[in-house]
């Protein structure tokens, strides 16, 4: 195969480059040859029906799962099958679909723990800024498990901010949250993007997808079926019906 020959030159290299990635769980082919790219500074949206393999793709990219085969390049580094903590240290951060907070630690403790490996200098100040940005100051000293569902999502996002990552993977970070909290998250994404952070977001809410994503990637049955601008994808009613179910 001429995969490496097709890989872009370092200068305009995408931040994330995925080729022919496969992963099965027993008889289920959760990733069946995924091909996609996320550009530098881009906010790419990942949509598709439940069970189409979106979270699995995130797990493969972030090192929580090992691909059966295929190539994953992050910032030019081959990361397929590498340990999660090594990938994180290269500058990739992720949120979990189900909040995975450090439940017995305080809200500030969660933020500081996220910065404990690398980027420690000035962590306390950045934690304070993050608390302010996410409106979490009043609960800074509460245990994480005392937070409301929406606040837990905010803290999940706050930890990722503390990583000072170059690529952030967000797995349904606004799912089921109050509009006020969604607004806070959108503002924070905008702020990070100004600083050049790239995003790859799994999102079900079409309003959210339209507002924040530069480009949409549609997955079904472990494959990328199409990608393009939001309007193009939405106007293609066949894609909408097949892959997104009812029109929203």
């Amino acid at each position, binding site marked *: 195969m001429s995969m490496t020959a097709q890989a872009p030159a370092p200068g305009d290299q995408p931040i994330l480059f995925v080729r022919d990635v496969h992963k099965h769980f027993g008889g289920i082919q959760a990733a069946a040859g995924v091909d996609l790219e996320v550009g530098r500074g881009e906010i790419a949206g990942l949509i598709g029906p439940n069970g189409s393999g979106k979270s699995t793709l995130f797990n493969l990219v972030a090192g*929580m799962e090992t691909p059966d085969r295929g190539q994953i390049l992050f910032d030019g580094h081959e990361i397929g099958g590498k340990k999660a903590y090594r990938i994180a240290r290269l500058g990739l951060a992720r949120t*979990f679909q189900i909040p995975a907070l450090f439940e*017995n630690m305080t809200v500030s403790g969660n933020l500081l*723990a996220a910065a404990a490996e690398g980027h420690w200098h000035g962590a306390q100040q950045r934690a304070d800024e993050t608390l302010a940005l996410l409106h979490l100051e009043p609960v800074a000293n509460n245990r994480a*498990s005392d937070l409301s569902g929406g606040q837990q999502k905010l803290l999940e996002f706050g930890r990722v901010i503390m990583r000072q990552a170059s690529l952030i993977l967000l797995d349904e970070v606004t799912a089921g949250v109050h509009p006020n909290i969604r607004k806070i998250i959108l503002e924070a994404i905008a702020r990070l993007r100004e600083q050049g952070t790239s995003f790859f977001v799994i999102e079900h809410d079409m309003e959210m997808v339209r507002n924040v994503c530069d480009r949409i990637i549609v997955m079904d049955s472990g494959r990328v079926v199409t990608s393009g601008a939001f309007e193009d994808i939405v106007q293609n009613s066949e894609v909408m019906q097949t892959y997104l179910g009812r029109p929203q």
Partner: protein
Amino acid sequence: MAQTMKNRWAGLLLLVVILVVLALLPVLVNNYWLRIATGALMWAGLACSWNMLGGYAGYINFGHSAFFGIGAYATAILMGAEFAVPFLATIPIGTIVTALFAVVIGAPTLRLRGAYFAIATWAFAEVLMQFATVVDFTGGTGGIGLPPFLNERFFYFAMFAAAVLTYFLTWLLFERSRFGLKVKALRDHEPAAEAMGINTSLVKLQTFVLSAVVASVFGSIFAYWVTFINPKSVFGGDITDQMVVMVLLGGLGSLWGPAIGGVALFFVNRLIWMYYGDTAFYIAILGAAIILVVLFLPNGIAGLFARRSGKSGSVLDTVLGRLLGSRQGGRS
């Protein structure tokens, strides 16, 4: 905020008072009570060492007596006629042997789910006890004597210094540093900790080795103090059992919980011994303490003093959840 500052000063004052009283204790009480205080300090330190891994990292070690025993035997063997090593020099040797064993046991088992680690450590302590029983250089079942040094004050101050150092180290490493943040993060959610760049296998191993080494130091002092040890007296499962109950009663994962639980239970042990001449009743009390904690006091006695904004969950919930496999323990 002002309230917090006030409490902080009150806490610091209490700590200073306790330290001054402990430093003066040898002139305040007779040798009988000094021996009891020496034992109380030892148990406070041992409980703290167990809590490093059990409370801060969330990995239950059911064979911690193994490291207490290695330290005790290292000192006993090295101080014997054959080697005649001075007492203080036996301590670092004991800790090196302990650290090697901890790495060999911990590196493979700390990767597994918590329950496997608990079983592996328990088996390790049992094997060491059997080993010490059958080989010659440990004196076998008969045990091994040490050159007697009948100076109660020396042993009191040795345990006092070791305990102060243990608590200072715990405060510094687990409550005041990045290392502690990493340890607590992996206790609460291992895959999330990895996603934050934390090498959880390494941090767990470092914590395990540290907790083992501390137990080994207390084992060394203990052996010299009591002048005679046998496999049961330093490797026995009841030694680990007591540490576990002391930590649970005092407060799992808290700095002062193990001191509170350790001192309280050791005094109960001695009182029962004084009045009944045996400690069977003490075992019943240990059992009752566990039930009390699990049902009503998940944060232990220390938890009664902590002002908490809510009451959702506890370190005990997290650790039991991992041990029983109902929560994220290994990979996501």
